[in-house]
């Protein structure tokens, strides 16, 4: 019996669905893909690396396979003083973001300048290297492969760095811990300018994955949180127990991201801390317990670096 009395219907169905897919996938895809990267997009790609969600190289979302953002005030090659610069260090084997490996992500002008002036064509994942985000005379942002243009090696750059910002690994923790179920990363175009800052532009996302806009805002937008509040001490206390700095907060505690040992190698005893805190909350103690400073390789440190780096 089959569908033969429905032959026309089947054709109409196929045509209608194909047309709808063409309008809602192909046309927007072409339009969005034609947008050039902004400087923000270049910085994000070099900070977050290839992928912050599930992937082969970091299947359990532990923040592996990520570049390190560093602050430099002296040249890694000569040691001479330079203006404060952010460099993005990809240790050998770290996977590059799509902008460095695909020709169509950065956008026409940006891709051209990054190749001619920035020499990104010389970079390979096997060797790794150091990258900078620059702007040329025409105001076009581009990526500079500093290992080729300035001779900055990975080891020398990490050694010369004033600070290492583990925001790339931190974004993976941000995705894994589900921070984006409550905090959006998308100030809205209509009314969020004053509180949450400039809404993103169309080219701000090229090469970023996932974008974790968030949809259900139960907490402040975080896209520019590092500009509103740049205090590492506040962030540390807030992540450990948000009620320490904001009694009305409904954010969960992230004290388990501290791991076993704090920065001094002392054991982190959450049960004892909690007992002390409950006495403080009941009014039996005058001061809350001290918040341990997270160890340099702890997940808490990576997450705090990510949040503070959201400028």
């Amino acid at each position, binding site marked *: *019996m089959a*569908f033969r009395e*429905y032959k026309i219907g089947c054709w*109409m*169905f196929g045509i*209608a669905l194909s047309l*709808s*897919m063409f*309008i*809602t*996938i192909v*046309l*927007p*895809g072409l*339009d*969005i*893909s034609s947008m050039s990267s902004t400087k923000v997009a270049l910085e994000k790609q070099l900070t977050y690396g290839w992928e912050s*969600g*599930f992937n082969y190289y970091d299947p*359990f*979302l532990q923040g592996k396979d990520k570049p390190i953002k560093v602050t430099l005030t002296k040249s890694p090659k000569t040691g001479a003083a330079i203006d404060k610069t952010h460099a993005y260090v990809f240790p050998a084997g770290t996977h590059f973001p*799509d902008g460095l490996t695909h020709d169509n*992500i950065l956008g026409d002008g940006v891709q051209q300048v990054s190749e001619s002036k920035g020499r990104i064509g010389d970079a390979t994942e096997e060797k790794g290297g150091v990258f900078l985000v620059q702007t040329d005379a025409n105001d076009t942002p581009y990526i500079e492969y500093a290992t080729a243009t300035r001779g900055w090696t990975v080891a020398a750059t990490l050694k010369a760095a004033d600070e290492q910002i583990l925001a790339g690994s931190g974004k993976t923790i941000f*995705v894994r*811990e*589900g921070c*984006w179920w*409550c905090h959006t990363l*998308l100030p*809205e*175009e*209509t*009314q*969020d300018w*004053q*509180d949450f800052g400039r*809404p993103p532009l*169309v080219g701000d*996302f090229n*090469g970023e*994955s*996932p*974008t974790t*806009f*968030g*949809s*259900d*805002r*139960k*907490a402040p937008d975080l896209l520019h949180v590092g500009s509103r509040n740049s205090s590492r001490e506040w962030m540390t206390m807030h992540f450990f127990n*948000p*009620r320490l700095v*904001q009694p*009305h*907060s*409904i*954010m*969960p*505690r992230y004290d388990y991201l501290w791991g076993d040992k704090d920065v001094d190698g002392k054991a982190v005893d959450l049960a004892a801390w*909690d007992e002390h805190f409950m006495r403080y909350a009941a009014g039996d103690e005058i001061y809350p317990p001290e918040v341990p400073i997270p160890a340099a390789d702890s997940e808490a440190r990576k997450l705090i670096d990510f949040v503070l780096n959201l400028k």
Partner: protein
Amino acid sequence: MLKYLFAKEDDIPQGTAAIFFGVSSIAWFIIGTGLGSFNAAKLAFPDFFHGLYALQFGHMRQVHVHAVIFGWIAMAFAASMMYITPALGNTKLWSEKLGVWNCLLYNVGLCLALALLWSGVTSGREYSDHIWPIDLYIAFVMVVPWSLNVWMTILNRRTQGIYTTNWFFAACMFMTIIVFLIGNMPEWLHLTGLNEAYMTWWFAHNILGLLITPVAAAITYYIVPKVTGNPLYSHRVGHLHFWSIVVFYSTPAAHHLMSSPLPEWLKSFASVEGVLILVPAVAYVCNILLTMQGKWAMFVENIEIKFTITGVLLAIPLNMQGGFQQTRAINWYIHGTGWIVAHAHLALLGFSTFAEAAAVYYGMQVLLRRKLYSASLANFHFWMLLIGFSLYWTSMTISGLIQGAAKIYEVPYVDVVIAEHPYMIVRWLGGTMVFFGNIVWLYNMIMTARVGDIVPVGRQPAEVAYTR
């Protein structure tokens, strides 16, 4: 059920797969709403159970969503399709054995998928959170065999023509597979940036619009005429519903990202198409309510009709909200607030759940050939669901309006959190009522299977009087 896994096809009683899916769906409904109630408690009292890090909100939120969508809603759909499709084709299910295997592998896959999500292994995309190996499993082990059973049953039907419900079933399974494979492509092809963000919401919109809403509607197209005995009011209005779903519901994906920097033409197009969703919505609701002519007493007396029609009535505010809240004039105010959470629950816990609950109630009685154990417990379940949902919806809508007002007046965010606190408590109470109602439902169903009165051959369960 498991004894039929290796039985010969002819030795498996008809309806086995549907019963297996039906029981699973009720179990997942309890798990899903239990998780929801637990999460809601955390939003009201953030230090609730804070010592157990596995029960962290950020890890559990998506487990609730996927347990409810893939566990309850999709499995209730599968249960409905496995008995309604053959009934409407005057034939038997193409393969009960495939159905039983399908249900077993569905449950196994869902446990694995939720365990991974729970431990934080996620793609970081809302609604397409599952990692791509799980996506492939869902598509080819969970959905394709299910679709195959539906399509082959329709092809092997012994009736002239296909009834409305079955067009929807066949087409929706087809569209689901297409939407699922295309919607998860960003992960396979490593699409990035706005393309990826847009495709995330393209998937989320279409999986709701082309699977959940139309299949729930298709179920009511079967239950209402079948139980009341009235013919469907209009086959043509059904056509209008079907075609306008295909054309209008598959296009407004971008209205989920109205305040993001997507191309303006795309947002305007999506917004207009979004209003046009009112065409299938109005056609559908009118068609079902007019089918009820002369039988409105059953809305009070018959538990399946009570559930179904409540679902259809909830579709009215659902579609009015849905059509207008995504226009620029309104969206800027309520975007990303609790209003949207309320709307999502109106669609899934309101309209869709009530329709599916009716289908599972009815299907279990027909397949087991046993009258429902207790009318009182069923009514208790109904009111727990309806009151629980109403509390939830009202509190979240109010909290959404508070958030919206706070957005334009730009008050410090913590003041919003303080103002929302009482509504978060009500939300938790509402969700908990739904959870407890479902436990009663499971008990009622188990007792129906064990000691329910036998329905005589040739009789409908609705024609037999309740004894309890």
